[in-house]
């Protein structure tokens, strides 16, 4: 557990850098978390991050990568719902990195 100051606001993160409280999330926080992950956020990145937040709001979990890929394919099309596309955006694992930037906990079933 640590506290980081983002754009003038104190935010709790866990030992791996995930937000402790989802409610702390905003775009500034996301930008900070992305910077920590060395991910340069483009519109495509935001699309995935926002998708994850919507998924979490609906189901209360961060999806496993396989589930995320399938769900994105269903909503945004197969050219985005595939491992290659998602790993290009988030090289260290879309479920892990994108979830972190989206302010979600680490995916359940992430092994």
């Amino acid at each position: 557990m640590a506290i980081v100051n983002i754009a003038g606001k104190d935010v709790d993160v866990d030992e791996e850098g995930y937000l402790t409280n989802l409610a702390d999330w905003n775009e500034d926080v996301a930008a900070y978390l992305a910077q920590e992950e060395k991910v340069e956020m483009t519109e495509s990145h935001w699309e995935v991050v926002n998708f994850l937040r919507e998924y979490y709001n609906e189901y209360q979990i961060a999806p496993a990568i396989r589930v995320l890929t399938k769900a994105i394919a269903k909503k945004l099309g197969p050219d985005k719902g595939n491992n290659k596309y998602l790993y290009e955006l988030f090289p260290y694992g879309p479920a892990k990195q994108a979830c972190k930037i989206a302010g979600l906990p680490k995916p359940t079933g992430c092994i």
Partner: protein
Amino acid sequence: MSDVTGGIDMDDETEGVVKKFMFLNRKAPYGTIYALESLEVVLISAAFDQDVSLAFVDDGVYQIVKGQHTKGIDQKNFSPTYRALEGYDIEKLYVDKDSLEARGLSEEDLLVDVQVLDSAAMADKMAEQDVVISF
């Protein structure tokens, strides 16, 4: 099946063998940790490409009733997560008819699509499993 491990083999010889796993849920949510723990194990099990089913029996049927709002008890409402199971390719959800009726509930009160089974059908489902994991 290995008698020693109750059928859970992780060695190379059995790689690719799909077994029937049933998670048997018999406890109401929130009062104890069983329901949530079961759900987490179920989600993790999805990664192993096995034939997974869930059974809701006795107070376990309360896990999937609609209209759960947990703000007042300061616990996470995990009921929406049952609706994510389909995305994890877990689509076999069996509910015990007697248990539903004993609680004044019907299929319409449940927040996911399920198969309601009478005692004989539920008994057969359990009997055909390789592994039944109880919560």
